[in-house]
């Protein structure tokens, strides 16, 4: 294949603007999918993706397209996720491309991830093809949105393509534009190979599968390769491309994106961002690679039934094979027994992992309230990374705590400015910038503690703006803050899995909120339950749940004891979802719910 006929591009957009649907149309138009295979959002293959209607994992497909100039092109498409938790998938995908198709919803306009993703593409000098999608919608405002694209992003809109991925309009135009505007890749087939590991996953039959973009040289079966970060050597068994099903090819040359299978057993070998080269014909310097993504949010995962710890461990190990971005370390809680402290990219990521563990591996989980990672600076000057409130050093040893601060970018119609500003101030935000993107759209930049936004900020933002505001954020730095540990006591016993780290100014309201919430959640029991919130030894809030007064089978129905037994069995079944902590039975939702948005 001639390199001039290759085009590599990613589809990028804000969440839900129609990337995956557009990918469907491109696959159809180029005849890549057979009639029988057509389903909506074909590339969203995971059950969770299909149920939630969102893309979580970037997907790559090779298409063949005979353009109007009469030549046949190989188009390599990467559909990317729009949700901020998975933005690392976008940045990796872009590294494998020369161009990006930017999709903007003609009714929604430019939103936070539109901008964030476009900047990523521009940083990598990619050619951008802008598509105004969903023009079929009655509330589409192509003119307003074009103005926004010009004013907010600074892109020309003269030759923007108006399309409807749903109706299939504008598809050919998009393909033609990609062929003409996106430059072909460069690279020498005979040079020492340099291929970037864009993604890798574990396949039960083939072992580790690497998705690679070849920049220089050629990869073929039987070749001995080196993974440059470790220096480990493997022999290629197969190379191939996805079109959309995996198909073996003889070789992957410069500019091509495809899979490499090399009898690798351990996913940890294949670090995403690493460079593959030839063992003898070595490249001198590796490709720049990617920034390492670090978990931002942490939570404890415990089996509801303690006997299922082993099952949970196996499930986590298996899941980690395919998602190296989540971390897990064994942890013990006095209240919950053996479990894991897991790290995630964000809350959606956490929910997805939790759901997969429960559904695909059948373990019932108790999840503790998510927390961000803190740095505890001790009196002796040493620093400890604290990803669990229970592990905060003793107050006497602790000099101060530092919390992660992010830079949030918010896009919103100006009529909601007041409500959004108020929300940001409440969440300890410090404004860095406020600018009008167009006559009625505002872009705000706020420095905010991550712990203030991690759980419910996004929902509150949507409420404050009637769904019109969008947000993107990136990690800024760790900053010293006046934080305290808030402990929760049940009948005088501290429950480690319910502890939180909060800002001192919020400690009292938070303490009251949590105790009240638990009072509502914990059912009445045989004894009175006293719920207290404390900072150190100081009690700052108290609630109590009165003992249950009536739960009795008064009458024996003509000797029908079976009925009585059934009733007791039913009650017992209901209690199964409870965790006994000390003498108190707590519903499993309680642990997570203590941080939920105030109703």
């Amino acid at each position, binding site marked *: 294949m001639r390199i001039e006929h290759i085009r590599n591009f990613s589809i990028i957009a804000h969440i839900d603007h129609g990337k995956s649907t557009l990918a469907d149309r491109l696959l159809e138009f180029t005849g890549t999918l057979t009639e029988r295979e057509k389903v909506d959002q074909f590339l969203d293959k995971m059950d969770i993706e299909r149920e939630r209607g969102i893309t979580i994992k970037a997907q790559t497909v090779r298409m063949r397209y005979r353009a109007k100039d009469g030549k046949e092109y190989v188009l390599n498409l990467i559909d990317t996720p729009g949700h901020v938790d998975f933005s690392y998938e976008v940045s990796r995908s872009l590294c494998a491309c020369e161009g990006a198709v930017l999709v903007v919803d003609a009714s929604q306009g430019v939103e936070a991830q539109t901008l964030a993703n476009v900047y990523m593409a521009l940083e990598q000098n990619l050619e951008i093809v802008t598509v105004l999608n969903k023009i079929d919608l009655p509330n589409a405002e192509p003119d307003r949105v074009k103005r926004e694209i010009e004013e907010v992003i600074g892109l020309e809109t003269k030759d923007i393509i108006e399309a409807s991925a749903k109706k299939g309009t504008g598809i050919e135009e998009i393909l033609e534009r990609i062929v003409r505007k996106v430059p072909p890749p460069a690279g020498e087939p005979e040079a020492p190979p340099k291929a970037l590991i864009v993604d890798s996953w574990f396949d039960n039959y083939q072992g580790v599968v690497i998705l690679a973009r070849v920049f220089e040289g050629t990869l073929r079966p039987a070749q001995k390769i080196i993974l440059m970060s470790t220096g480990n050597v493997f022999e290629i068994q197969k190379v191939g491309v996805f079109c959309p099903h995996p198909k073996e090819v003889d070789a992957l040359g410069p500019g091509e994106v495809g899979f490499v299978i090399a009898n690798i057993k351990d996913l940890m070998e294949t670090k995403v961002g690493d460079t593959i080269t030839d063992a003898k014909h070595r490249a001198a310097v590796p490709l720049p690679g990617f920034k390492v993504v670090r978990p931002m949010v942490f939570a404890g995962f415990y089996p509801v039934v303690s006997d299922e710890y082993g099952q949970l461990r196996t499930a986590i190990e298996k899941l980690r094979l395919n998602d190296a971005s989540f971390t897990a370390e064994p942890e013990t809680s006095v209240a919950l027994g053996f479990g894991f402290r897991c790290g995630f990219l964000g809350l959606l990521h956490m929910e997805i992992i939790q759901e997969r563990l429960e559904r695909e591996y059948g373990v019932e989980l108790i999840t503790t309230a998510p927390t961000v990672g803190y740095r505890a600076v001790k009196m002796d000057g040493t620093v400890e990374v604290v990803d669990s409130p229970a592990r905060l050093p003793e107050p006497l040893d602790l000099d101060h705590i530092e919390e992660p601060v992010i830079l949030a970018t918010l896009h919103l119609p100006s009529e909601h400015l007041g409500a959004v500003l108020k929300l940001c101030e409440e969440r300890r935000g410090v404004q860095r910038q406020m600018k009008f993107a167009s006559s009625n759209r505002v872009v705000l930049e706020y420095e905010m503690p991550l712990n203030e936004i991690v759980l419910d900020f996004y929902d509150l933002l949507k409420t404050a703006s009637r769904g019109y505001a969008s947000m993107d954020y990136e990690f800024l730095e760790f900053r010293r803050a006046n934080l305290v540990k808030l402990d929760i006591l049940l009948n005088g016993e501290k429950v480690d899995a319910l502890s939180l780290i909060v800002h001192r100014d919020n400690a009292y309201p938070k303490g009251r909120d949590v105790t009240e919430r638990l009072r509502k959640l914990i059912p009445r029991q*045989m004894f009175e339950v006293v719920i207290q919130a404390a900072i150190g030894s100081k009690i700052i809030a108290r609630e109590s749940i009165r003992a249950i*007064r009536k*739960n009795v089978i008064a009458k024996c*129905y003509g*000797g029908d004891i079976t009925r009585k037994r059934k009733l007791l069995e039913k009650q*017992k079944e209901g209690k199964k979802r409870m965790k006994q902590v000390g003498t108190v039975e707590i519903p499993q939702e309680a642990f997570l719910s203590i941080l939920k948005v105030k109703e």
Partner: protein
Amino acid sequence: MRGIYVHIPFCVKKCAYCDFYSVAGDKTALEDFRGLLVREMDLFAGKFPFDAAVPADTVFFVAPDAEVTTEANPGTVGAEDFRTLRAGGFTRVSIGVQSFHAQTLRTLGRIHGVEEVRAAHRDARRAGFSSIGIDLIFGIPGQEPSDWAADLDISVTFLPAHISAYALAPEPGTPIHRAIGRGELSMPPDDSVAEMYEKTRKVLASAGYRHYEISNFARPGAECRHNIKYWRREGYLGLGPSAHGLFFPQGKAPFGMRTANPPSLSGYRRGIEEGCLPWENVHICNREDAWKESLIAGLRMREGIDLAEIEKKNGPPPEDVRRAVQTLLSSGKLQEKGSRILLPVHLLFVSNEALQALV
């Protein structure tokens, strides 16, 4: 010695809370019913013959000191009837009083008033019944703790030998359950019902009644022997539609066999006319059943249970049952008293919370 329960499913009018099987106002079926009942007894005796000690030509042998109770609804049994019953061998009467409060009786859909209760009690006594019990219900929609206290005060003035006091549990399918569902009635709060229960215990104790089961009180020696069989998991035969039985046929079901007749006259008749016992459900109990039932029924009694005795009858307990009993003991939900184990008195009205662990 076996007990017998006979279910005669005819009522003058259905009460609003009742989910026993009975038909109201149908007198014609009664004659026919007597014949069916006799045939059911014959069928049983034919299939499961009694021990040799029974006199010849006797199908059912009633011990001379047997307790023979009839239920009697005030207003439906007259002086003459009580005399007939007494002469026929009945030794005990249980009067379905339920309440002395006019509005409460209406809520329950009862057809009598206070006067009929007085009359029934007087007539039973005159007919020679010395063991008279009265049944009461509390925790009824609209009932205040003070109403209930008044009911208790009146009850003890009758000097009955036995008092049952049940907390109302509206069962699905009953008119009262539907009225609650529609919001026309509402149950008194649990706290208030619990208060009524405490009141019951206090008033009846000071009037000389011994609290011997969750809902039952008696003058010493006047405890209901039949009901105690249920709670001690002893055998009893259930005759008539919807009746349940438990018996231990020799060599066939060492852990007991539970039977249930169909809850309808037609189903009952069909079975008998086909010449077989009308059982709709038969369950052969295993050791686990025997243990669990012995515990959940036995713990209803204030005397509690004797693990060694249950073990003697049924062999060692299943491991999870043994463990559950230990946990309940160590958490104070059960207590030990000599060789027996019982529910602490303050947990009687929340006993399900403890008994759950044993099923």
